[in-house]
C-alpha cells in the first residue's frame, strides 16, 4: 500500500456494524497532502459509510480515525479540519447565499467572516447572486455554493460523496477543475463515486471496496497491473 510521508488522514482498523450487518471491516487508510483518492465499489460496499466515518458524522464500532494527529471522534475540534461536499446541498433554501456562508462561518468560529464570505463567493463566481435565496439557484450554482461552504474554513481535508450527481457537462468540468486546483494546492481529497470516469483524470489513487473490505488500494497509474494480479488471485481461490 502506498504510504504518504506524513499522512493527514490516518484510519486504522475501521469496523462498522449495524446490528448483525457488517458494513465495514478491517479498513485501514492513510492519505497524505496532494492526494486525490477515488473510492469505488458496488452498491452496499460501504463507501458512503466509510466517508461518513471519515467526516465524523458516524462513529465506527471499532477503530480510529486521526486527522492531523487529532482523534476525530474523541474531540469535536477534529471536525474543523474536514470539508464535506455531498450530492445534497446542506444549504438552507430560505437563506441567501451570503447568509448560508455566514452561518457556516459562525459554526466554525471563523473571525473576519464577512470578508471570508465575500472572497468565497467571488471564488465560485456567485458574488452577483450573493443576496438571492439559495432556493432559486440552479443545480450547478447550488453545487458551487456548496463548494464555497465546504472550503470556507480552509480545511486540509475535503471529502466528497457523489458530488457529480445531477450536474450537466459544463458544471461537471468546472467541478473537476476546482478539485484539481484543490489537489494541487496540497489539500487531501477523498471522493466516493459510483462512476470512476468522473474523476479518473484527476485521481492519484484508487481504493476499491467490496463487502466492507478494501480489495484494492493502489496508485492510479498502477491500477491496471494491480487489477491483473488481484484478479488472478481471485480466480485462483
Amino acid at each position, binding site marked *: 500500500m502506498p504510504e504518504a510521508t506524513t499522512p493527514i488522514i490516518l484510519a486504522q482498523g475501521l469496523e462498522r456494524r449495524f446490528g448483525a450487518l457488517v458494513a465495514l471491516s478491517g479498513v485501514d487508510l492513510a492519505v497524505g497532502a496532494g492526494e486525490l483518492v477515488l473510492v469505488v465499489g458496488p452498491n452496499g460496499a460501504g463507501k458512503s459509510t466509510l466517508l461518513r466515518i471519515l467526516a465524523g458524522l458516524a462513529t465506527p464500532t471499532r477503530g480510529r480515525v486521526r486527522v492531523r494527529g487529532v482523534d476525530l471522534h474523541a474531540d469535536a475540534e477534529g471536525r474543523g479540519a474536514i470539508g464535506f461536499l455531498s450530492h445534497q446541498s446542506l444549504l*438552507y433554501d430560505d437563506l441567501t447565499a451570503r*447568509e448560508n456562508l455566514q452561518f457556516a462561518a459562525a459554526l466554525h468560529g471563523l473571525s473576519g467572516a464577512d470578508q471570508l464570505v465575500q472572497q468565497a463567493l467571488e471564488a465560485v463566481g456567485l458574488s452577483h447572486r450573493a443576496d438571492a435565496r439559495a432556493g432559486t439557484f440552479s443545480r450547478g450554482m447550488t453545487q458551487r455554493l456548496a463548494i464555497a461552504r465546504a472550503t470556507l474554513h480552509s480545511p486540509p481535508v475535503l471529502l466528497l460523496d457523489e458530488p457529480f450527481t445531477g450536474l450537466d457537462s459544463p458544471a461537471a468540468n468546472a467541478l473537476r477543475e476546482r478539485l484539481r486546483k484543490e489537489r494541487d494546492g496540497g489539500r487531501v481529497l477523498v471522493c466516493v463515486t459510483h462512476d470512476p470516469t468522473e474523476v479518473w483524470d484527476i485521481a492519484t489513487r484508487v481504493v476499491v471496496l467490496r463487502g466492507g473490505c478494501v480489495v484494492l488500494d493502489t496508485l492510479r497509474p498502477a491500477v491496471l497491473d494491480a487489477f491483473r494480479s488481484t484478479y488472478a488471485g481471485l480466480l485462483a481461490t
Partner: protein
Amino acid sequence: MKTLRAALAIAAKDLRIEWRTRTALLTSTVFAALVFLIFVFSRDTGGVSLATLAPSVLWVTLALAVMVALNRAFLLEKENSALEGILLAPVSRSAIFWGKWLANLGFVLMIEAIAFPLWILFFDVRIQPALLVVALLALLAAIGFTAVGTVFSAMTVRTRFAELLLPVLLLPFMIPPLFFASQGTVRLFEGRSVTEIWSWLRLLALYDLAFLAVATMLFPKVMDE
C-alpha cells in the same frame, strides 16, 4: 464561549428562516385562535361562564400550539438535509440542543404573545395586575415544554409516523407543568395572593431545571449515528 456562539447562531438561523417564511408562525397562531373558538362554541352556554373556563382553555391551547410548533422544528432540517451541515462543524452536540431549544422557545413565545391578548379578549379576562404573573407562568411552562419537545422532535423526525408520535410521547410530559401552571392561574383568578402562587411557580421552575439538565445530556445521544 464557542458553544454559546454556535448555539446562538443556530437559534438565529432558525428564527430568521421562520420569520422569512412566517408560515409556521401564522399557522400556529391561527390554530390557537381556532382552539379558543372551539372552546367557546362547544361549552354549555348556560352553565359555564367564560371566566370559569378561561384558565383551563389557556393552558390546553398553549399545549396544543406547542405541539404544532415543535413539529416544524426538525422538519426544516430534514427537508434540506441541512442538519448534516451542523453536525459536520466542530460544534458540540449540546450546542445544537441549546440552539434548537432557544429557537423553539422563541417561536413558542411568539405564539403565546399573540394568543395571550386574544385569550384576554375572548374570555373576558379581568385580572389586570395579575396578568404579569400569568405571563411568567407562560414563560416557565414554555421552557419546560420546549426542553422536552426539542429532544422528542429530534427523535420522531427520523421515524415513520412523526406527526402522530410526537404528541403521544410529549403530552404525558406536559401534564405536570400544565397542572402547575393552570393551578397557579386558577388561584390568580380566585384573587389569592402572589405568595400562594409562588409555590406553583417554584414547581414549574423545578421541572424546567430538571428537564433542561437531562435534555442537554441526552440530546447528543439522539444525534449519534
